[in-house]
């Protein structure tokens, strides 16, 4: 495929602008007359708002206006919605409470927006915000997942009695119960999946610009999916019709899921721009990010895994409570259901699976998809359970996994998914070999001699990516289709623009998408530009999340390219007086196979645009569009091994080595794929060892800055050992599966399995902070 095509370690085309300070992020944007917004937010986790008096603030220096929720409501701006309908097992629809972009009479979490101050400077806006008097009547709050449904718990929404949003199930409960009743062994465990804040380094920001003369809005925003933002703001929030609203997501400094959703601030800044007649910019500070960016995970589960006398898994039964926070965020309902329970078969042949999932409201930040989204929860639950079972059964963790691996494909699980390809043992073997698993006991002995505790742990993950076949997700409740679009625009001189609905915010699309085109046509990568992130340029798209850009976004590019190539071949055949089917495209030329006749790519492009000599009836130009709707999910899988050394005096964990063996199918750019895995592992290690969102009993967020929320830093992490196995994905033209989330999915259980192995106490919850490990060690001895 050449040095710049598929499979090549091409350094990134986009790097230079970021390395020289020329990246353009939303907060870098300034337009004439622009003013600054400051959001007034609830300091209470739960309160009635009895009155807002902004009269003093309005007359303060630099203040343009102070606007509140009643005005927003009067202007017909709609409520925020959750776009995935889930029905409870009794057939009733999920109980969605009203989420006003600016709260009107009740606030339900610390950080809930109430009003906006627009002023000449941010300092003046903040000064004025302090002069707005809000009369609150505090109400009791509930924050903990496990107690939200308890009798007497404070109630958040009248629509949802007992704070229960839905009580949903998947799989065959009777079959699971029967298998458990007749099992030779049943492993029971309670699993907590800790609550995380996604923390992209760029805080969210938005710039709303209303043009009164054209009655047109422009929204610069930190979004992973600007077209979805436009669709939702038009169709549901009544901001403006789509033809009157342009959404631009310029360079975006990381997302990890948290920038999928449409938040109140985009809506309010656009509306405020119309109300005040000035462009309005808002940029979150880090504390606002902790207070308002959708959080991730927060599950409490009870698990039973049944085995026959031969140690084959016969059933899995899971009862999960998932905390969705104070309101239902855009895709919140899908995360603990179809992105979670559908993966509970893991890499294992399990005849009977049943999952019951209840989701609850609490007085906390809304919870939605964060890197992995549901799949880390499923993997953590399964891999902690099977590890525990191996210890109980006295069998090696690798052996128990091997015995239960799925080995023939396609494989239909009892929980919807149809796995299309994989070789789980290949990854397991590769990981164990890279980690020198066989030499571990000797290393453990050395550590023991030095007064340290050493442990090793593995995790075998599977995920469903390439999200997603539209009809399938539609039947499961999704409010949108999850195809992707592409447009390949060949210029008259042969250079190429590829317009894609996938958005790049760190993933390197400007390079990998160009590699695909360069490889197919044999043209220089410099002659290809990738255009994304602007609803005025790209017609439509579903955006970037769920490791879908390669499998879905690039497949759409392939389809558009096929059309372009077909037309170019027709033109070339006509010009060279050859048969169309004899034309091949190679090394930047269209050749007549078996002859020395050839036309350079640019000449065919030029011919398409001069249109002096085209086949009869052909339209001029060389530009094609395609929409690609995947036929199935893709199933990346792999095996991770963590080896740790614990300092028993302090409980500190040192990650001695971390090995990842992943099967992502075909790989476009190994350099970029490795980078994705590194970053995912770091977030998984963060979850396992460091990160935890904590609220106090009154709903105050205790971890609202980097002083208290522990982010993984360079000296917390080792260098990682990676390898790739490859069973190409049969369901998309490129054979690729997706790699963006694997690291975050596979690593937490590997770490916790290693630490619990080291300390001999299985009752450890994430994050395994030094104090918790020290306490667990003392409890164990």
């Amino acid at each position, binding site marked *: 495929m050449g040095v710049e095509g598929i499979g090549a370690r091409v350094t990134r085309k986009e790097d230079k602008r970021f390395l020289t300070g020329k990246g353009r992020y939303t907060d870098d944007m300034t337009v004439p007359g622009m003013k600054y917004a400051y959001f007034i937010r609830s300091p209470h986790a739960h309160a009635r708002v009895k009155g807002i008096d902004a009269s003093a603030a309005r007359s303060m220096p630099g203040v343009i206006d102070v606007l509140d929720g009643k005005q927003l409501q009067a202007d017909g701006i709609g409520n925020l919605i959750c776009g995935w309908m889930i029905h409870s097992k009794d057939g009733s629809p999920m109980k969605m409470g009203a989420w006003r972009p600016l709260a009107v009479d009740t606030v339900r979490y610390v950080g809930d927006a109430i009003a906006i101050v627009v002023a000449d400077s941010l300092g003046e806006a903040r000064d004025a915000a302090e002069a707005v008097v809000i009369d609150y009547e505090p109400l009791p709050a509930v924050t903990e997942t496990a107690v939200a449904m308890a009798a007497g718990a404070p109630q958040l929404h009248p629509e949802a009695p007992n704070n229960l949003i839905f009580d949903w199930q998947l799989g065959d409960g009777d079959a699971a119960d029967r298998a458990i009743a007749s099992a030779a062994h049943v492993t029971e465990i309670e699993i907590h999946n800790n609550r995380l804040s996604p923390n992209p380094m760029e805080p969210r920001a938005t710039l709303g610009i209303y043009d009164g003369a054209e009655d047109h809005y422009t929204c610069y925003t930190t979004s992973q999916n600007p077209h979805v933002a436009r669709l939702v703001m038009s169709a549901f929030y009544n901001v403006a019709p789509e033809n009157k609203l342009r959404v631009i997501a310029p360079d975006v400094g990381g997302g990890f899921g948290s920038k999928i959703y449409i938040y109140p601030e985009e809506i309010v800044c656009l509306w405020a721009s119309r109300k005040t007649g000035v462009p309005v910019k808002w940029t979150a500070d880090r504390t606002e990010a902790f207070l308002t960016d959708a959080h991730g995970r927060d599950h409490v589960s009870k698990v039973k895994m049944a085995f026959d006398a031969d140690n084959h898994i016969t059933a899995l039964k899971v009862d999960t409570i998932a905390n969705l926070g104070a309101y239902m965020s855009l895709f919140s309902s899908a995360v603990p259901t179809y992105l979670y329970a559908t993966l509970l078969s893991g890499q294992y042949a399990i005849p009977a699976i049943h999952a019951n999932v209840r989701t609850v409201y609490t007085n906390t930040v809304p919870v939605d998809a964060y890197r992995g989204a549901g799949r880390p929860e499923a993997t953590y639950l399964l891999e902690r359970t099977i590890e525990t079972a191996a210890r109980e059964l006295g069998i090696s963790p690798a052996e128990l996994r091997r015995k239960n691996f799925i080995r023939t494909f396609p494989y239909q699980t009892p929980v919807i998914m149809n796995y299309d390809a994989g070789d789980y043992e290949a990854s397991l073997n590769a990981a164990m070999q890279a980690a020198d698993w066989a030499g571990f006991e000797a290393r453990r002995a050395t550590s023991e001699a030095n007064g340290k505790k050493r442990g090793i742990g593995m995790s075998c993950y599977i995920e469903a990516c390439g999200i997603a076949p539209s009809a399938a997700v539609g039947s499961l409740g999704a409010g949108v289709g999850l195809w992707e679009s592409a447009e390949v625009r060949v210029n008259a001189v042969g250079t190429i623009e590829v317009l894609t609905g996938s958005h790049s915010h760190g993933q390197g699309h400007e390079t990998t998408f160009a590699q695909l085109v360069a490889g197919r046509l044999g043209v220089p990568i410099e002659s290809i530009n990738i255009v994304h992130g602007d609803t005025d340029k790209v017609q439509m798209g579903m955006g970037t999340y769920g490791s879908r850009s390669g499998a879905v976004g690039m497949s759409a590019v392939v389809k558009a390219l096929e059309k372009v190539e077909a037309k170019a071949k027709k033109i070339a055949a006509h010009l060279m007086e050859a048969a169309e089917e004899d034309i091949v495209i190679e090394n930047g030329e269209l050749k007549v196979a078996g002859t020395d006749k050839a036309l350079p790519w640019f000449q065919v492009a030029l011919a398409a645009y001069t249109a002096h000599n085209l086949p009869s009836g052909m339209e001029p130009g060389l530009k094609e569009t395609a929409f690609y709707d995947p036929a199935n999910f893709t199933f990346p899988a792999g095996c991770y091994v963590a080896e740790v050394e614990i300092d028993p005096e302090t409980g500190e964990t040192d990650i001695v080595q971390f090995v990842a063996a992943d099967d992502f199918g075909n790989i476009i750019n190994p350099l970029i794929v490795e980078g994705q895995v590194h970053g995912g592992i770091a977030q998984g290690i963060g979850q396992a060892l*460091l990160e935890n969102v904590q609220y106090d009993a009154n709903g105050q967020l205790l971890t609202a800055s980097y002083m208290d929320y522990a982010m993984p830093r360079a000296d917390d992490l080792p260098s990682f050992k990676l390898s790739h196995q490859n069973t190409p994905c049969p369901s998309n033209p490129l054979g690729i599966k997706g790699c963006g989330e694997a690291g975050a999915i596979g690593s937490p259980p590997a770490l916790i399995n290693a630490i619990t192995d080291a300390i001999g106490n299985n009752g450890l919850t994430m994050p395994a902070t030094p104090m918790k490990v020290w306490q667990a060690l003392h409890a164990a001895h």
Partner: protein
Amino acid sequence: MYATSYHRASSVEDAVKLKSAHDEGKYLSGGMTLISTMKQRLAAPSDLIDLRHIPSLRGVRIEGRKVTIGAATPHADVAASRELAAICPALCQLAGHIGDPHVRHMGTIGGSIANNDPAADYPAGVLGLGATVVTDRRSISADDFFTGLFETALAEGEMVTAVTFEAPEKAGYAKFNNPASRFAMTGVFVAKTAGGVRVAVTGAGSSGVFRHSGFEQALAGNWSADALSNITVDSSGLMSDLHANAEYRANLVKVMARRAVASAG
């Protein structure tokens, strides 16, 4: 940040004069704590008097075994001082692990001890060394200087100009980081000085930095990590927070003390 007025002092006298002219003003040294606090609107000094440009406040001076560190000397300069490393490497090591490289380029010893954050490193070093805090008007022994959480013996308008001490025979510092902020979750400075053994603990006490007399007595009799093995650290009076409860901190105090002694040799 609330509005404030900035003044750049050219000398100690100038600084004290500026401060006395502005009741609600504050001295500003490296600003690594003060500016952050002001950004969060948790402090609102009407005026800031910048001490960073007063030449006499900057630098490490060594005469024999007497060490004088100017109040506005950044942590990086203390960490990198070869002369200091030759007679008291423990303090260089302490300074070299405050915050991060960028913070160490701005933050100063005077600013750190005048702020007396209960999780700051320097208070342990200064108290552990039995140093003297020199101000624009007097000298204060470290034992009298640190009076409580964010509290010191400094009078209104009084300004730290230097810290002086006799280099100890031996000293060591061991610190266990808060996993989030990287401040000391517990830091212990041990020193064998002419006036006896001193052990100072930061990051752990609910009233800020404190001396541990039990450790001091044990080490006076036997300068070795093992001398501390049988001493129980009382967890009452220790801080409890998200990251470490008092019981765990009590454990860390002992472990870090042992490691500090071991590192002192």
